[in-house]
Protein backbone atom coordinates (compact mmCIF):
# COMPACT_ATOMS: atom_id res chain seq x y z
CA UNK A 1 0.00 0.00 0.00
CA UNK A 2 1.46 3.39 -0.98
CA UNK A 3 1.58 6.17 1.61
CA UNK A 4 -1.36 7.80 -0.06
CA UNK A 5 -4.66 6.17 -1.04
CA UNK A 6 -5.31 6.20 -4.80
CA UNK A 7 -7.87 8.87 -5.82
CA UNK A 8 -10.20 6.25 -7.32
CA UNK A 9 -10.18 4.06 -4.22
CA UNK A 10 -13.07 3.79 -1.79
CA UNK A 11 -10.36 4.36 0.81
CA UNK A 12 -10.17 2.83 4.26
CA UNK A 13 -13.11 0.57 5.04
CA UNK A 14 -14.24 -1.29 8.14
CA UNK A 15 -16.19 -4.55 8.00
CA UNK A 16 -19.45 -4.73 9.93
CA UNK A 17 -21.21 -7.74 11.39
CA UNK A 18 -24.90 -8.39 11.83
CA UNK A 19 -26.22 -11.23 13.96
CA UNK A 20 -29.44 -12.84 12.68
CA UNK A 21 -31.52 -14.56 15.34
CA UNK A 22 -34.43 -15.76 13.19
CA UNK A 23 -33.78 -19.37 12.12
CA UNK A 24 -32.81 -19.93 8.49
CA UNK A 25 -34.22 -23.10 6.95
CA UNK A 26 -31.66 -24.42 4.50
CA UNK A 27 -32.27 -26.28 1.24
CA UNK A 28 -30.72 -29.41 2.76
CA UNK A 29 -33.55 -29.48 5.33
CA UNK A 30 -31.46 -28.39 8.30
CA UNK A 31 -31.85 -25.07 10.10
CA UNK A 32 -29.31 -22.47 11.16
CA UNK A 33 -30.90 -21.16 14.37
CA UNK A 34 -28.75 -18.06 14.33
CA UNK A 35 -25.88 -16.82 12.22
CA UNK A 36 -23.71 -13.83 11.51
CA UNK A 37 -22.97 -12.08 8.25
CA UNK A 38 -19.92 -9.87 7.88
CA UNK A 39 -20.15 -7.20 5.21
CA UNK A 40 -18.68 -3.96 3.90
CA UNK A 41 -20.38 -1.02 2.26
CA UNK A 42 -18.99 1.60 -0.09
CA UNK A 43 -20.67 4.87 -1.10
CA UNK A 44 -23.84 6.37 0.38
CA UNK A 45 -27.34 4.94 0.38
CA UNK A 46 -29.60 7.66 -1.04
CA UNK A 47 -32.80 8.83 0.65
CA UNK A 48 -35.01 6.80 -1.70
CA UNK A 49 -32.79 3.74 -1.07
CA UNK A 50 -32.82 3.19 -4.82
CA UNK A 51 -29.07 3.09 -5.46
CA UNK A 52 -28.06 -0.11 -3.68
CA UNK A 53 -25.86 -2.66 -5.45
CA UNK A 54 -25.09 -6.10 -4.06
CA UNK A 55 -21.82 -7.87 -4.89
CA UNK A 56 -21.97 -11.68 -4.75
CA UNK A 57 -18.59 -13.33 -4.36
CA UNK A 58 -17.19 -16.46 -5.99
CA UNK A 59 -15.46 -19.48 -4.45
CA UNK A 60 -12.55 -17.78 -2.74
CA UNK A 61 -14.05 -14.29 -2.43
CA UNK A 62 -15.40 -12.50 0.62
CA UNK A 63 -16.77 -9.22 1.92
CA UNK A 64 -13.59 -7.22 1.33
CA UNK A 65 -14.24 -6.32 -2.30
CA UNK A 66 -12.73 -2.83 -2.42
CA UNK A 67 -10.55 -0.37 -0.55
CA UNK A 68 -8.11 -1.01 2.26
CA UNK A 69 -8.49 -2.12 5.85
CA UNK A 70 -5.38 -0.26 6.94
CA UNK A 71 -2.57 1.80 5.47
CA UNK A 72 -0.36 -1.27 5.91
CA UNK A 73 -2.40 -3.45 3.52
CA UNK A 74 -0.33 -4.66 0.60
CA UNK A 75 -3.34 -5.04 -1.66
CA UNK A 76 -6.87 -3.63 -1.86
CA UNK A 77 -10.10 -5.69 -1.89
CA UNK A 78 -10.50 -8.43 -4.50
CA UNK A 79 -12.59 -6.40 -6.98
CA UNK A 80 -11.01 -3.00 -6.41
CA UNK A 81 -10.43 -2.61 -10.16
CA UNK A 82 -14.20 -2.40 -10.66
CA UNK A 83 -15.54 -0.75 -7.47
CA UNK A 84 -14.76 2.87 -6.57
CA UNK A 85 -15.37 6.48 -7.53
CA UNK A 86 -15.47 6.68 -11.35
CA UNK A 87 -15.01 2.94 -11.76
CA UNK A 88 -17.63 0.70 -13.46
CA UNK A 89 -19.43 0.15 -10.13
CA UNK A 90 -19.24 3.85 -9.37
CA UNK A 91 -19.42 4.56 -5.65
CA UNK A 92 -20.24 8.22 -6.41
CA UNK A 93 -23.55 6.89 -7.69
CA UNK A 94 -24.15 3.56 -6.00
CA UNK A 95 -24.27 2.27 -2.45
CA UNK A 96 -22.36 -0.99 -2.72
CA UNK A 97 -22.79 -3.90 -0.31
CA UNK A 98 -20.33 -6.81 -0.31
CA UNK A 99 -20.70 -9.67 2.15
CA UNK A 100 -19.09 -12.95 3.09
CA UNK A 101 -21.49 -15.83 2.51
CA UNK A 102 -22.50 -18.28 5.22
CA UNK A 103 -20.46 -21.46 5.08
CA UNK A 104 -17.40 -19.38 4.22
CA UNK A 105 -14.41 -18.70 6.40
CA UNK A 106 -13.85 -14.94 6.42
CA UNK A 107 -16.05 -13.92 9.31
CA UNK A 108 -19.60 -14.99 8.49
CA UNK A 109 -20.94 -18.10 10.18
CA UNK A 110 -19.25 -21.17 8.76
CA UNK A 111 -17.57 -24.45 9.68
CA UNK A 112 -14.99 -22.68 11.85
CA UNK A 113 -17.66 -20.83 13.85
CA UNK A 114 -18.87 -22.06 17.21
CA UNK A 115 -22.03 -24.13 17.06
CA UNK A 116 -24.17 -22.65 19.88
CA UNK A 117 -25.74 -26.06 20.50
CA UNK A 118 -22.40 -27.68 21.37
CA UNK A 119 -20.15 -24.79 22.29
CA UNK A 120 -17.57 -26.19 19.85
CA UNK A 121 -16.60 -25.37 16.26
CA UNK A 122 -19.08 -26.75 13.72
CA UNK A 123 -16.38 -28.47 11.69
CA UNK A 124 -17.69 -31.40 9.67
CA UNK A 125 -21.19 -30.96 11.11
CA UNK A 126 -21.77 -27.61 9.42
CA UNK A 127 -24.74 -28.04 7.06
CA UNK A 128 -24.32 -28.33 3.30
CA UNK A 129 -25.21 -25.02 1.66
CA UNK A 130 -26.88 -24.28 -1.66
CA UNK A 131 -26.78 -21.09 -3.70
CA UNK A 132 -30.41 -20.40 -2.74
CA UNK A 133 -29.43 -20.41 0.96
CA UNK A 134 -26.89 -17.68 0.30
CA UNK A 135 -29.49 -15.68 -1.59
CA UNK A 136 -32.03 -16.10 1.21
CA UNK A 137 -29.48 -14.87 3.76
CA UNK A 138 -28.53 -11.96 1.49
CA UNK A 139 -32.21 -11.00 1.27
CA UNK A 140 -32.32 -10.83 5.05
CA UNK A 141 -29.26 -8.59 5.03
CA UNK A 142 -31.10 -6.36 2.55
CA UNK A 143 -34.01 -6.19 5.02
CA UNK A 144 -31.65 -5.11 7.79
CA UNK A 145 -30.15 -2.41 5.58
CA UNK A 146 -33.63 -1.20 4.57
CA UNK A 147 -33.12 -2.09 0.91
CA UNK A 148 -36.38 -3.27 -0.67
CA UNK A 149 -35.08 -3.36 -4.23
CA UNK A 150 -31.49 -3.62 -5.40
CA UNK A 151 -30.64 -1.34 -8.32
CA UNK A 152 -28.33 -4.14 -9.42
CA UNK A 153 -26.94 -7.42 -8.17
CA UNK A 154 -23.58 -8.32 -9.63
CA UNK A 155 -21.40 -11.39 -9.51
CA UNK A 156 -18.80 -13.38 -11.41
CA UNK A 157 -18.54 -17.18 -11.64
CA UNK A 158 -20.31 -18.65 -8.57
CA UNK A 159 -21.33 -15.06 -7.82
CA UNK A 160 -23.17 -14.96 -11.15
CA UNK A 161 -25.14 -18.03 -10.10
CA UNK A 162 -26.28 -16.14 -7.00
CA UNK A 163 -27.36 -13.23 -9.20
CA UNK A 164 -29.50 -15.53 -11.37
CA UNK A 165 -30.98 -17.18 -8.28
CA UNK A 166 -31.86 -13.74 -6.91
CA UNK A 167 -33.63 -12.88 -10.17
CA UNK A 168 -35.71 -16.05 -9.88
CA UNK A 169 -36.42 -16.14 -6.15
CA UNK A 170 -36.93 -12.40 -5.57
CA UNK A 171 -38.01 -11.01 -8.96
CA UNK A 172 -39.44 -7.85 -7.36
CA UNK A 173 -36.27 -7.05 -5.46
CA UNK A 174 -33.72 -6.83 -8.29
CA UNK A 175 -33.83 -4.36 -11.20
CA UNK A 176 -30.59 -5.27 -12.98
CA UNK A 177 -28.70 -8.54 -12.95
CA UNK A 178 -25.05 -8.58 -14.05
CA UNK A 179 -23.85 -12.14 -14.60
CA UNK A 180 -20.15 -12.46 -15.43
CA UNK A 181 -18.26 -15.61 -16.51
CA UNK A 182 -20.96 -17.85 -15.11
CA UNK A 183 -23.22 -20.75 -16.15
CA UNK A 184 -26.75 -22.14 -15.76
CA UNK A 185 -25.12 -25.24 -14.31
CA UNK A 186 -21.70 -26.83 -14.18
CA UNK A 187 -20.57 -29.23 -16.87
CA UNK A 188 -19.38 -32.75 -16.02
CA UNK A 189 -15.78 -31.62 -16.58
CA UNK A 190 -16.28 -28.76 -14.16
CA UNK A 191 -17.73 -31.04 -11.47
CA UNK A 192 -14.80 -33.39 -12.09
CA UNK A 193 -12.29 -30.66 -11.25
CA UNK A 194 -14.19 -29.90 -8.05
CA UNK A 195 -14.25 -33.55 -7.07
CA UNK A 196 -10.52 -33.93 -7.66
CA UNK A 197 -9.99 -30.93 -5.39
CA UNK A 198 -12.27 -32.32 -2.69
CA UNK A 199 -10.56 -35.71 -2.90
CA UNK A 200 -7.21 -34.01 -2.34
CA UNK A 201 -8.58 -32.44 0.85
CA UNK A 202 -10.25 -35.51 2.35
CA UNK A 203 -7.22 -37.66 1.50
CA UNK A 204 -5.03 -35.48 3.69
CA UNK A 205 -4.40 -37.48 6.92
CA UNK A 206 -4.90 -34.24 8.85
CA UNK A 207 -8.44 -33.86 7.52
CA UNK A 208 -9.73 -36.18 10.29
CA UNK A 209 -13.13 -36.59 8.59
CA UNK A 210 -13.54 -32.84 8.73
CA UNK A 211 -12.99 -32.51 12.47
CA UNK A 212 -9.42 -31.29 12.15
CA UNK A 213 -10.02 -28.32 14.47
CA UNK A 214 -11.05 -30.67 17.30
CA UNK A 215 -7.83 -32.55 16.59
CA UNK A 216 -5.89 -29.32 16.65
CA UNK A 217 -4.55 -29.71 13.15
CA UNK A 218 -5.25 -28.51 9.59
CA UNK A 219 -5.30 -30.42 6.24
CA UNK A 220 -3.04 -27.82 4.64
CA UNK A 221 -1.44 -30.11 2.09
CA UNK A 222 -4.78 -31.33 0.77
CA UNK A 223 -6.19 -27.81 0.62
CA UNK A 224 -3.07 -26.58 -1.17
CA UNK A 225 -3.41 -29.30 -3.82
CA UNK A 226 -7.10 -28.46 -4.18
CA UNK A 227 -6.20 -24.84 -4.80
CA UNK A 228 -3.47 -25.78 -7.27
CA UNK A 229 -5.97 -27.81 -9.30
CA UNK A 230 -8.44 -24.95 -9.22
CA UNK A 231 -5.84 -22.35 -10.06
CA UNK A 232 -4.71 -24.23 -13.17
CA UNK A 233 -8.27 -24.18 -14.46
CA UNK A 234 -8.67 -20.45 -13.83
CA UNK A 235 -5.76 -19.58 -16.12
CA UNK A 236 -5.44 -20.11 -19.85
CA UNK A 237 -2.70 -22.17 -21.46
CA UNK A 238 -1.57 -19.01 -23.24
CA UNK A 239 -1.41 -16.83 -20.12
CA UNK A 240 0.50 -19.48 -18.21
CA UNK A 241 2.92 -19.93 -21.11
CA UNK A 242 3.41 -16.21 -21.47
CA UNK A 243 3.98 -15.61 -17.77
CA UNK A 244 6.11 -18.66 -16.93
CA UNK A 245 6.96 -20.56 -20.09
CA UNK A 246 9.54 -23.21 -19.24
CA UNK A 247 11.62 -20.78 -17.22
CA UNK A 248 13.53 -22.30 -14.36
CA UNK A 249 13.46 -20.99 -10.84
CA UNK A 250 16.39 -23.16 -9.84
CA UNK A 251 18.48 -26.07 -11.07
CA UNK A 252 19.79 -26.72 -14.53
CA UNK A 253 19.45 -29.20 -17.37
CA UNK A 254 23.25 -29.59 -17.64
CA UNK A 255 24.61 -33.07 -17.21
CA UNK A 256 26.55 -33.65 -14.08
CA UNK A 257 24.80 -31.12 -11.87
CA UNK A 258 23.14 -32.47 -8.80
CA UNK A 259 20.66 -29.60 -8.61
CA UNK A 260 17.09 -30.69 -9.34
CA UNK A 261 15.15 -28.64 -11.85
CA UNK A 262 12.32 -26.48 -10.56
CA UNK A 263 10.16 -24.70 -13.11
CA UNK A 264 8.78 -21.25 -12.32
CA UNK A 265 5.22 -22.54 -12.77
CA UNK A 266 5.81 -25.19 -10.11
CA UNK A 267 7.07 -22.65 -7.64
CA UNK A 268 4.19 -20.31 -8.45
CA UNK A 269 1.51 -22.96 -8.04
CA UNK A 270 3.04 -24.17 -4.79
CA UNK A 271 3.07 -20.64 -3.46
CA UNK A 272 -0.58 -20.12 -4.50
CA UNK A 273 -1.60 -23.40 -2.90
CA UNK A 274 0.26 -22.81 0.34
CA UNK A 275 -0.91 -19.25 0.86
CA UNK A 276 -4.52 -20.32 0.15
CA UNK A 277 -4.21 -23.22 2.60
CA UNK A 278 -3.13 -20.76 5.28
CA UNK A 279 -6.19 -18.56 4.91
CA UNK A 280 -9.03 -20.83 3.76
CA UNK A 281 -11.00 -23.51 5.55
CA UNK A 282 -11.15 -27.02 4.11
CA UNK A 283 -14.75 -27.64 5.17
CA UNK A 284 -15.75 -24.33 3.57
CA UNK A 285 -13.99 -25.36 0.37
CA UNK A 286 -15.93 -28.62 0.28
CA UNK A 287 -19.26 -26.91 0.93
CA UNK A 288 -18.74 -24.12 -1.56
CA UNK A 289 -17.63 -26.47 -4.36
CA UNK A 290 -20.64 -28.69 -3.59
CA UNK A 291 -22.91 -25.65 -3.88
CA UNK A 292 -21.36 -25.01 -7.30
CA UNK A 293 -21.95 -28.61 -8.38
CA UNK A 294 -25.58 -28.67 -7.19
CA UNK A 295 -26.55 -25.40 -8.84
CA UNK A 296 -28.90 -25.98 -11.77
CA UNK A 297 -31.13 -23.02 -12.48
CA UNK A 298 -33.57 -24.91 -14.71
CA UNK A 299 -33.90 -28.13 -12.70
CA UNK A 300 -37.22 -27.17 -11.11
CA UNK A 301 -38.54 -25.75 -14.38
CA UNK A 302 -38.62 -28.94 -16.43
CA UNK A 303 -34.91 -28.49 -17.23
CA UNK A 304 -35.93 -25.60 -19.45
CA UNK A 305 -34.01 -22.40 -18.62
CA UNK A 306 -36.51 -20.42 -20.70
CA UNK A 307 -39.25 -21.43 -18.25
CA UNK A 308 -36.96 -20.52 -15.37
CA UNK A 309 -36.23 -17.05 -16.69
CA UNK A 310 -39.94 -16.41 -17.25
CA UNK A 311 -40.08 -15.98 -13.46
CA UNK A 312 -37.68 -13.02 -13.62
CA UNK A 313 -38.25 -9.29 -14.09
CA UNK A 314 -34.69 -7.99 -14.02
CA UNK A 315 -32.75 -6.67 -16.98
CA UNK A 316 -29.61 -8.69 -17.59
CA UNK A 317 -26.07 -7.95 -18.65
CA UNK A 318 -24.09 -11.11 -19.38
CA UNK A 319 -20.32 -11.04 -19.95
CA UNK A 320 -17.89 -13.82 -20.84
CA UNK A 321 -14.19 -14.05 -21.71
CA UNK A 322 -12.77 -15.65 -24.84
CA UNK A 323 -10.14 -17.89 -23.20
CA UNK A 324 -12.21 -18.87 -20.15
CA UNK A 325 -12.51 -22.64 -20.38
CA UNK A 326 -13.82 -23.20 -16.85
CA UNK A 327 -16.90 -21.04 -17.53
CA UNK A 328 -16.64 -20.86 -21.29
CA UNK A 329 -18.41 -18.23 -23.45
CA UNK A 330 -20.71 -21.03 -24.63
CA UNK A 331 -22.10 -21.30 -21.06
CA UNK A 332 -22.85 -17.57 -21.03
CA UNK A 333 -24.51 -17.81 -24.44
CA UNK A 334 -26.83 -20.45 -22.98
CA UNK A 335 -27.91 -17.90 -20.39
CA UNK A 336 -28.43 -15.27 -23.07
CA UNK A 337 -30.38 -17.60 -25.36
CA UNK A 338 -32.68 -18.61 -22.53
CA UNK A 339 -33.31 -14.98 -21.62
CA UNK A 340 -34.13 -14.15 -25.24
CA UNK A 341 -36.43 -17.19 -25.35
CA UNK A 342 -38.16 -15.90 -22.23
CA UNK A 343 -38.50 -12.46 -23.83
CA UNK A 344 -36.38 -10.79 -21.16
CA UNK A 345 -34.05 -7.82 -21.58
CA UNK A 346 -30.46 -8.87 -22.04
CA UNK A 347 -27.20 -7.56 -23.43
CA UNK A 348 -24.18 -9.76 -23.95
CA UNK A 349 -20.51 -9.09 -24.56
CA UNK A 350 -17.75 -11.60 -25.13
CA UNK A 351 -14.52 -9.95 -24.03
CA UNK A 352 -11.33 -10.86 -25.86
CA UNK A 353 -8.91 -11.76 -23.09
CA UNK A 354 -5.92 -14.03 -22.63
CA UNK A 355 -6.45 -14.51 -18.89
CA UNK A 356 -8.91 -17.39 -18.80
CA UNK A 357 -11.51 -17.45 -16.01
CA UNK A 358 -9.40 -15.07 -13.91
CA UNK A 359 -10.17 -12.35 -16.47
CA UNK A 360 -13.34 -11.42 -14.61
CA UNK A 361 -11.21 -10.11 -11.74
CA UNK A 362 -8.57 -8.29 -13.79
CA UNK A 363 -8.53 -4.81 -15.31
CA UNK A 364 -9.44 -4.83 -19.02
CA UNK A 365 -10.38 -1.81 -21.08
CA UNK A 366 -13.28 -3.28 -23.01
CA UNK A 367 -14.67 -5.17 -20.00
CA UNK A 368 -14.59 -1.94 -18.00
CA UNK A 369 -16.31 -0.05 -20.83
CA UNK A 370 -19.18 -2.51 -21.28
CA UNK A 371 -19.65 -2.93 -17.54
CA UNK A 372 -19.40 0.79 -16.76
CA UNK A 373 -21.64 1.94 -19.61
CA UNK A 374 -24.31 -0.56 -18.66
CA UNK A 375 -24.30 0.53 -15.01
CA UNK A 376 -24.25 4.20 -16.07
CA UNK A 377 -27.65 3.51 -17.63
CA UNK A 378 -29.11 2.12 -14.40
CA UNK A 379 -31.53 4.70 -13.02
CA UNK A 380 -31.43 5.44 -9.31
Amino acid at each position, binding site marked *: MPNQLPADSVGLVTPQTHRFTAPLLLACGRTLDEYELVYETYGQLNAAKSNAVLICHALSGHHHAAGYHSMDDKRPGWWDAYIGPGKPIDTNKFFVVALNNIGGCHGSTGPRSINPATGKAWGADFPMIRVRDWVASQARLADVLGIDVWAAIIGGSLGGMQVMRWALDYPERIRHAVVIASALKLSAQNIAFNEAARKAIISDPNFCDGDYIAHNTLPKNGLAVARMIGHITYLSDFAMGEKFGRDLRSGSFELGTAEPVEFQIESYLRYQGDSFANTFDANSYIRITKALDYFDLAREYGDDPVNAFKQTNAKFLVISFSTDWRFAPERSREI*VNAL*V*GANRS*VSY*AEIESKHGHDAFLLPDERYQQVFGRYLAGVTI
Partner: protein
Amino acid sequence: MRIDLNEIQHWIQQGSRILDLGCGDGTLLKFLIDTKQVQGYGLEIDAAQINACIDKGLNVIEQNLDSGLGNFADKSFDTVLMTQALQTLHFPHLVLDEMLRVGKECIVTFPNFGHWKARYYLATRGRMPVSDLLPYEWYNTPNIHFCTFNDFEVLCRERNIKVIHRQVVNEQSGQTLKDFMPNLFGETAIYHLSK
Protein backbone atom coordinates in the same frame (compact mmCIF):
# COMPACT_ATOMS: atom_id res chain seq x y z
CA MET B 1 -31.11 8.62 -40.14
CA ARG B 2 -30.23 6.71 -43.31
CA ILE B 3 -33.06 6.80 -45.82
CA ASP B 4 -33.55 3.01 -45.91
CA LEU B 5 -33.99 2.95 -42.14
CA ASN B 6 -36.72 5.58 -42.36
CA GLU B 7 -38.69 3.54 -44.88
CA ILE B 8 -38.54 0.33 -42.85
CA GLN B 9 -40.83 1.61 -40.10
CA HIS B 10 -43.86 1.36 -42.41
CA TRP B 11 -43.53 -2.41 -42.49
CA ILE B 12 -43.11 -2.90 -38.74
CA GLN B 13 -46.14 -3.69 -36.60
CA GLN B 14 -46.78 -1.80 -33.37
CA GLY B 15 -45.46 -3.73 -30.35
CA SER B 16 -43.93 -6.50 -32.41
CA ARG B 17 -40.85 -8.56 -31.56
CA ILE B 18 -37.81 -7.64 -33.62
CA LEU B 19 -34.35 -9.07 -34.21
CA ASP B 20 -31.92 -6.67 -35.90
CA LEU B 21 -28.92 -8.43 -37.45
CA GLY B 22 -25.82 -6.25 -37.59
CA CYS B 23 -27.62 -3.52 -35.66
CA GLY B 24 -24.66 -1.10 -35.70
CA ASP B 25 -25.01 1.68 -33.15
CA GLY B 26 -28.66 0.78 -32.61
CA THR B 27 -30.16 3.85 -34.31
CA LEU B 28 -32.88 1.85 -36.07
CA LEU B 29 -33.72 -0.33 -33.07
CA LYS B 30 -33.99 2.72 -30.80
CA PHE B 31 -36.17 4.47 -33.38
CA LEU B 32 -38.50 1.47 -33.65
CA ILE B 33 -38.74 1.17 -29.86
CA ASP B 34 -39.58 4.87 -29.56
CA THR B 35 -42.06 5.02 -32.42
CA LYS B 36 -43.48 1.50 -32.62
CA GLN B 37 -42.94 0.26 -29.06
CA VAL B 38 -41.28 -2.87 -30.41
CA GLN B 39 -39.48 -5.35 -28.17
CA GLY B 40 -36.15 -5.95 -29.80
CA TYR B 41 -32.68 -7.37 -29.72
CA GLY B 42 -29.74 -6.33 -31.86
CA LEU B 43 -26.89 -8.61 -32.89
CA GLU B 44 -23.50 -7.00 -33.45
CA ILE B 45 -19.81 -7.95 -33.35
CA ASP B 46 -18.10 -4.57 -33.30
CA ALA B 47 -17.07 -3.52 -29.77
CA ALA B 48 -17.57 0.21 -30.34
CA GLN B 49 -21.03 -0.34 -31.83
CA ILE B 50 -21.98 -2.61 -28.92
CA ASN B 51 -20.92 0.16 -26.54
CA ALA B 52 -23.08 2.63 -28.46
CA CYS B 53 -26.07 0.29 -28.16
CA ILE B 54 -25.51 -0.13 -24.42
CA ASP B 55 -25.38 3.66 -24.08
CA LYS B 56 -28.83 3.78 -25.66
CA GLY B 57 -30.12 1.19 -23.20
CA LEU B 58 -30.76 -1.36 -25.96
CA ASN B 59 -30.59 -5.13 -25.80
CA VAL B 60 -27.48 -5.90 -27.80
CA ILE B 61 -25.99 -9.36 -28.11
CA GLU B 62 -22.47 -10.00 -29.35
CA GLN B 63 -22.85 -12.59 -32.07
CA ASN B 64 -21.21 -13.28 -35.42
CA LEU B 65 -23.88 -13.64 -38.12
CA ASP B 66 -21.62 -15.93 -40.12
CA SER B 67 -21.99 -18.56 -37.38
CA GLY B 68 -25.72 -18.64 -38.06
CA LEU B 69 -28.82 -18.05 -35.98
CA GLY B 70 -29.07 -21.59 -34.60
CA ASN B 71 -29.58 -20.22 -31.09
CA PHE B 72 -32.95 -18.68 -32.04
CA ALA B 73 -36.14 -20.74 -32.24
CA ASP B 74 -38.31 -21.06 -35.37
CA LYS B 75 -40.68 -18.11 -35.90
CA SER B 76 -39.64 -16.62 -32.56
CA PHE B 77 -39.61 -13.08 -33.96
CA ASP B 78 -42.25 -11.12 -35.87
CA THR B 79 -39.64 -9.46 -38.03
CA VAL B 80 -35.95 -10.13 -38.53
CA LEU B 81 -34.14 -7.11 -39.97
CA MET B 82 -30.81 -6.78 -41.68
CA THR B 83 -29.79 -3.41 -43.06
CA GLN B 84 -26.72 -2.99 -45.26
CA ALA B 85 -25.06 -6.15 -43.95
CA LEU B 86 -26.03 -8.79 -46.54
CA GLN B 87 -23.03 -7.97 -48.70
CA THR B 88 -20.61 -8.42 -45.78
CA LEU B 89 -21.57 -12.03 -45.03
CA HIS B 90 -19.67 -15.14 -46.04
CA PHE B 91 -22.88 -17.03 -46.88
CA PRO B 92 -25.63 -14.46 -47.51
CA HIS B 93 -28.05 -17.03 -48.94
CA LEU B 94 -27.79 -19.23 -45.84
CA VAL B 95 -28.26 -16.29 -43.48
CA LEU B 96 -31.31 -15.30 -45.52
CA ASP B 97 -32.74 -18.81 -45.04
CA GLU B 98 -32.05 -18.56 -41.33
CA MET B 99 -33.73 -15.15 -41.11
CA LEU B 100 -36.85 -16.60 -42.70
CA ARG B 101 -36.78 -19.53 -40.30
CA VAL B 102 -36.42 -17.37 -37.17
CA GLY B 103 -38.75 -14.56 -38.27
CA LYS B 104 -42.29 -14.62 -39.56
CA GLU B 105 -41.16 -11.86 -41.89
CA CYS B 106 -37.85 -10.32 -42.86
CA ILE B 107 -36.67 -6.97 -44.06
CA VAL B 108 -33.37 -6.75 -45.92
CA THR B 109 -31.65 -3.69 -47.33
CA PHE B 110 -28.53 -3.68 -49.46
CA PRO B 111 -26.64 -1.47 -51.90
CA ASN B 112 -27.23 -2.02 -55.63
CA PHE B 113 -24.02 -2.94 -57.35
CA GLY B 114 -25.80 -2.57 -60.68
CA HIS B 115 -26.18 1.18 -60.19
CA TRP B 116 -25.08 3.10 -63.27
CA LYS B 117 -22.19 4.77 -61.44
CA ALA B 118 -20.68 1.42 -60.53
CA ARG B 119 -21.16 0.16 -64.08
CA TYR B 120 -19.68 3.36 -65.54
CA TYR B 121 -16.69 3.21 -63.17
CA LEU B 122 -15.95 -0.38 -64.11
CA ALA B 123 -16.59 0.16 -67.83
CA THR B 124 -14.46 3.26 -68.23
CA ARG B 125 -11.66 2.63 -65.74
CA GLY B 126 -11.60 -1.14 -65.75
CA ARG B 127 -11.25 -1.06 -61.98
CA MET B 128 -13.51 -2.04 -59.09
CA PRO B 129 -15.86 0.83 -58.27
CA VAL B 130 -15.10 3.10 -55.32
CA SER B 131 -17.80 5.61 -54.44
CA ASP B 132 -19.17 7.71 -51.57
CA LEU B 133 -21.52 4.89 -50.62
CA LEU B 134 -18.90 2.17 -51.00
CA PRO B 135 -15.64 3.92 -50.19
CA TYR B 136 -13.38 0.85 -49.99
CA GLU B 137 -10.72 -0.66 -52.19
CA TRP B 138 -11.36 -4.24 -53.34
CA TYR B 139 -8.76 -5.66 -50.95
CA ASN B 140 -9.92 -3.98 -47.73
CA THR B 141 -13.66 -3.84 -48.25
CA PRO B 142 -15.91 -5.55 -45.70
CA ASN B 143 -18.38 -5.92 -48.59
CA ILE B 144 -17.46 -9.28 -50.04
CA HIS B 145 -20.69 -10.40 -51.72
CA PHE B 146 -22.07 -7.70 -53.94
CA CYS B 147 -25.26 -8.18 -55.89
CA THR B 148 -27.60 -6.18 -58.06
CA PHE B 149 -31.33 -5.88 -57.56
CA ASN B 150 -31.84 -8.37 -60.37
CA ASP B 151 -29.45 -10.83 -58.73
CA PHE B 152 -31.42 -10.64 -55.52
CA GLU B 153 -34.72 -11.16 -57.34
CA VAL B 154 -33.31 -14.32 -58.91
CA LEU B 155 -32.12 -15.57 -55.51
CA CYS B 156 -35.61 -15.04 -54.04
CA ARG B 157 -37.20 -16.96 -56.93
CA GLU B 158 -34.72 -19.82 -56.64
CA ARG B 159 -35.29 -20.18 -52.91
CA ASN B 160 -39.09 -19.73 -53.05
CA ILE B 161 -38.92 -16.56 -51.00
CA LYS B 162 -42.04 -14.43 -51.22
CA VAL B 163 -41.47 -10.72 -51.80
CA ILE B 164 -44.17 -8.84 -49.84
CA HIS B 165 -42.84 -5.40 -50.72
CA ARG B 166 -39.88 -4.11 -52.64
CA GLN B 167 -38.72 -0.54 -52.62
CA VAL B 168 -35.82 1.40 -54.05
CA VAL B 169 -34.48 4.47 -52.33
CA ASN B 170 -31.88 6.99 -53.41
CA GLU B 171 -30.02 9.18 -50.98
CA GLN B 172 -29.21 11.80 -53.64
CA SER B 173 -29.88 11.90 -57.36
CA GLY B 174 -32.06 9.89 -59.73
CA GLN B 175 -35.23 10.09 -57.65
CA THR B 176 -37.50 9.75 -60.71
CA LEU B 177 -35.31 7.52 -62.85
CA LYS B 178 -35.01 4.92 -60.10
CA ASP B 179 -38.70 4.06 -60.38
CA PHE B 180 -38.42 3.33 -64.09
CA MET B 181 -35.12 1.49 -64.12
CA PRO B 182 -34.34 0.51 -60.54
CA ASN B 183 -31.48 -1.85 -61.39
CA LEU B 184 -29.68 0.97 -63.20
CA PHE B 185 -30.62 4.03 -61.15
CA GLY B 186 -31.53 2.68 -57.68
CA GLU B 187 -28.95 3.02 -54.91
CA THR B 188 -30.43 1.01 -52.07
CA ALA B 189 -32.98 -1.80 -52.12
CA ILE B 190 -35.40 -2.60 -49.32
CA TYR B 191 -37.05 -5.99 -49.49
CA HIS B 192 -39.85 -7.17 -47.25
CA LEU B 193 -39.87 -10.97 -47.39
CA SER B 194 -41.59 -14.05 -46.09
CA LYS B 195 -41.44 -17.76 -46.85
